[in-house]
């Protein structure tokens, strides 16, 4: 049994395999941020930070922090050689114009038609959508990276019950249990973490889960 950190890293590692050489990628806050640590060495992936740059690099040493170079969560980062800074107009032109190949986001709920809810719980937690609605409508491929359930409650559902962040937006969901494609016929499990049985994964999913004929083990 993996602890929270191990689970998150296991998911992030699998997400990283979805990124192709030359891709422009935007990672959400939290678990998705970890994906940058696991990009295969034979691939060059460019990370965009929606606060205004491409070429997001590793966290700097404490004495090398530049207060003007932070990620979209305001944490100090670096910019790699070949990177560029720009304003929010261009940053969201990149996002909304379909120039981001893949975005990786967390979610509160995902529906079998690709609807996603991840920006508010009415009357309780209302952080706002930030750039998430733009990323969901603009990125070529949307991957949701998250734990399969929340304290035992379903997050993969027939229909979302929380306010939507976008409709028909999610292409793939990667959890500690498996890799699920969101298709016109619903959720299709294409990879299974062998630590979980099909029945366990089905039970943890609040909608029909179709098992791919070419189901593979999740690496």
């Amino acid at each position, binding site marked *: 049994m993996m602890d929270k950190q191990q689970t998150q890293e296991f998911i992030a590692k699998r997400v990283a395999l979805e990124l192709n050489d030359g891709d422009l990628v935007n990672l959400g806050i939290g678990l998705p941020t970890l994906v940058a640590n696991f990009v295969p060495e034979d691939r060059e992936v460019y990370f965009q930070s929606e606060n*205004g740059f491409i070429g997001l690099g590793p966290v700097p040493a404490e004495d090398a922090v530049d207060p003007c170079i932070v990620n979209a969560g305001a944490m100090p980062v670096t910019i790699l050689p070949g990177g560029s800074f720009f304003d929010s107009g261009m940053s969201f032109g990149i996002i909304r114009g379909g120039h981001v190949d893949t975005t990786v986001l967390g979610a509160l709920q995902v529906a079998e038609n690709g609807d996603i809810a991840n920006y508010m719980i009415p009357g309780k937690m*209302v952080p706002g959508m930030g750039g998430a609605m733009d990323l969901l409508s603009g990125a070529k491929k949307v991957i949701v990276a998250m734990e399969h359930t929340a304290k035992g409650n379903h997050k993969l559902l027939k229909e979302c019950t929380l306010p939507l962040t976008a409709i028909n937006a999610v292409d793939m969901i990667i959890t500690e249990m498996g890799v699920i494609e969101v298709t016109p016929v619903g959720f299709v499990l294409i990879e299974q973490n062998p630590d979980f049985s099909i029945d366990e994964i089905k039970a943890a999913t609040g909608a029909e889960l179709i098992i791919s004929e070419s189901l593979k083990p999740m690496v």
Partner: protein
Amino acid sequence: MNKLISMEEAVNLVRDGDTVMVGGFLGVGTPERLIDALIEKGVKDLTLICNDTAFVDRGVGKMVVAKMFKKIMTSHIGTNKETGRQMLEGETEVELIPQGTLVEQIRAGGYGLGGVLTKTGLGTEVEKGKLTINIDGQTYLLEKPIRANVALLFAERADEKGNLTFHGATRNFNTYMGTAADISIVEAQEIVKVGEINPDDVVVPGIFVTHIIDGGAL
């Protein structure tokens, strides 16, 4: 045509009830000293237009704590618990706007466009009460231009004509807000003589800058 003014002159340009645009992304690229001076003066009933409400001790977040806003138009309030509290308790009206839509609405306000046609927000709460338009079989949401009385901006360098340059991720909304406000006040880390910024390097032309204040180093 001297654009350089004192902090005292600057705060007197912001009046109770004004709509203010403030540059910055989680406080990075925000005119902190100007904000401190406005808090000290105690302006009130402002409408804020800003990417986010930063943190309780940073950027516009400090103005939220000082209860200077009657309304906040922003994409994100999750890093400032006081904004959430004021919203949930009905003290402050908060309108949540997708980040990319917000910057385009400001650009439209400054560039004379009638609105923004976007897919962002379709099928969500953001769509409510708004017009959708079908263009060649695709549906787009019509988002209207936004303007303000005053823009409070930050830059790395300004020359005396108000031409601006930036460093790092501080541009964010600072480039467009000055186009969409009746007056704009820029807190620059450094003010240089006319001619010291190469015309090829200017990011925001001085025509979008009404006043400059010397903010000093970060």
